[in-house]
């Protein structure tokens, strides 16, 4: 065994010849001393520290940033430029200034799409919020164990399913002749509805689907938010005699406000950008007209149609720019408001 030494190498203590101060070692001349360009996490001031380290850091991040830059940041910047041009992807571009905007604002369909989007958002946001919150409160067993168990997973399931696949069954559900929806309605004595074929009910049908698909996510978020409410606070309130409603108003709601705000932002942003389900429910089987009488043409859907069905890229870019700004403003405003209204512990 190489590791073992056979003689006792233990040096004797006092009396052992001590090495004196450093003598000049037999150094070959011309040998450079000091640091070399070796990869190291040295936090000093050597060349390695100043050049190699940042270089390595940047290098490792470049693949991700290159993808982000090319496919996300560049298109974002492009919006601010191309909206002022007349262009289609394949051909020439000519500057048009605000021309696109004036054309756009003269389209009644555009304003209708904004109204539709507003309708969609204004209904979905409170509705989804309330349902998600109610479900979270229901599923929460005790204050700490907010996992909600199996039911939670079931409610969450729709959120991870592919939208087109599930839209198929919802088209069936909303079928006026043999769908489940009308069956349920007639069963309780209400008149059947046209649903996806009816300009008045197409959007509500889409809302229904969207609620089904997305509420799971927000419920889970609320459950997580509920789980960080400290138990002592709830217990203290209970000892003070607070019943369910007071408990909610004075204890749970304020402490839940960070989550509530997060959910609020998410719902608004996601709803304004909804596309796939609208396309599938009212554009796919029924025709690519954006729903009966364009009743489900939200802003996002209209952008798609303008660009990819009718190839009016300039207008589409302009609409996209407006949407971009609106969404950014919403996010920023809500974040600002949150610092004023949200109660942080």
């Amino acid at each position, binding site marked *: 065994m190489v590791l073992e030494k056979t003689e006792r*190498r233990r040096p004797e203590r006092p009396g052992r010849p001590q090495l004196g101060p450093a003598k000049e*070692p037999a150094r070959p001349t011309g040998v450079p001393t*000091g640091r070399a360009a070796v990869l190291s996490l040295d936090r000093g001031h050597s060349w390695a520290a100043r050049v190699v380290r940042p270089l390595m850091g940047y290098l490792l991040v470049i693949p991700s940033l290159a993808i982000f830059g090319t496919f996300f940041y560049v298109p974002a910047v492009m919006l601010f430029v191309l909206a002022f041009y007349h262009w289609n992807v394949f051909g020439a571009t000519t500057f048009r200034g605000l021309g696109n905007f004036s054309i756009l604002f003269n389209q009644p369909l555009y304003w209708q799409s904004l109204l539709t989007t507003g309708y969609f958002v204004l209904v979905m946001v409170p509705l989804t919020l309330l349902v998600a919150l109610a479900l979270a409160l229901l599923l929460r067993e005790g204050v700490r164990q907010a996992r909600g168990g199996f039911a939670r997973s079931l409610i969450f399931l729709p959120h991870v399913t592919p939208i087109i696949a599930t839209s198929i069954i919802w088209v069936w559900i909303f079928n006026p002749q043999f769908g489940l929806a009308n069956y349920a309605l007639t069963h309780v004595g209400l008149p059947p509805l046209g649903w996806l074929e009816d300009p008045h009910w197409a959007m509500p049908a889409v809302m229904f689907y969207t609620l089904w698909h997305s509420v799971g996510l927000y419920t889970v978020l609320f459950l997580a938010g509920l789980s960080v409410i400290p138990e002592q606070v709830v217990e203290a309130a209970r000892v003070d005699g607070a019943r369910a409603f007071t408990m909610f108003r004075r204890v749970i709601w304020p402490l839940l406000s960070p989550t509530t705000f997060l959910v609020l932002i998410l719902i608004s942003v996601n709803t304004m950008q909804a596309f796939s389900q609208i396309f599938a429910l009212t554009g796919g089987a029924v025709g690519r007209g954006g729903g009966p009488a364009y009743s489900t043409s939200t802003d996002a859907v209209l952008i798609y149609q303008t660009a990819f069905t009718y190839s009016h890229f300039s207008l589409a870019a302009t609409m996209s720019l407006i949407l971009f700004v609106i969404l950014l403003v919403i996010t920023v405003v809500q974040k600002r408001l949150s610092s004023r209204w949200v109660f942080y512990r």
Partner: protein
Amino acid sequence: MVMVRVDAVSKRFAEVPALTDLSVDVGDGEFFIMVGPSGCGKTTLLRILAGLERPDSGDIWFGDRCVTAADPGSREVGMVFQNYALYPHLSIYENLAFGLRVRRTNRHEVRSRVMEVSTLLDLQELLERKPKQLSGGQRQRVALGRAIMRRPHLLLMDEPLSNLDAILRERMRIELRRFHDRLGITTIYVTHDQKEAISMADRVMVMNAGRIEQIGPPEEIIRHPRTEFAARFMGQPPMNMWRASMVVSPAGAALVRAGSRSTWTVPGPWPETPGGSPDIWLGVRPRDLAVTGPGEVADLKVIVEVVERGGDEVFLHCRHRDEMLVVGVDATRLVPHVGDEVGLTIRLDRVHLFDAKTGARIQPSGANGRASSALLVGGELQ
């Protein structure tokens, strides 16, 4: 096989100097301990030796090979970290085999080496387990095993015992020393515990603020500390340090403490006041103080505040005016009680004198020098 030479190494972090122009040599097979308070630079020096940090200036030599610019992996150095740094997701076997696997050693060679090391450190039973299933002492042995897997020429240890409880620490001190002796491997060890340093080292290097205070075998540092810092740092309980003034008389040295105006004579011969100023530190080890017996004249009077018992020895923590000092007393003798006023005598032939400005030890002149004595006047108890 390897001598380690540190040649004028300096290093700073941001604006803070960690090491200043430090040079030291370590002999082949030596158990060399670097000791000092937190922030003194000992760990920095260790990491520089390992190659984990680069010095700003100066060189490191392993034998006749200059390794200042060499990668840690090419220096053939093994290191044991304070927190052992065992990979939690690997078994003990794989932890030990890590270095060999990185070098794509073949399976059989890996196996034989791992078995070799684990037998040496009595780890055979534990090879399939994960680190979190092991006790502190076992983990440390694994860390040690990993350090020596590739048969390094130099073994570095960074406070390896500080995470263990007191009893285990005592045992491991002996185990580590025995391990070192068995392998004969040059070992450089860092600790802040001077007790460890005294009990384990062949030579000790006391460090403070990036500089060397003293290097030498442990007993020598205890008996002849060369700086005031080394005197304070080493030894348990710590040396009593008093401010005083020193005047060299033609015959010997004398000290006086503040207030009492008594002058003590320290037998010389002493050189003329070195450093130009008469202010000094006077160091007296607790065991060089004694309670006055009947009929003896006390050098100073103190009040006993705490009686600390420790087996054969008793330490009296006493108060003189508003300062504390420690006296070591034989337990078989009569021990004073708390609140007693006792007189103390000082073994003046065993005191240590240090220049108050530089901290350097004041040495008596050679035997052939002029006989002179130092007169120490007007000091304060520190």
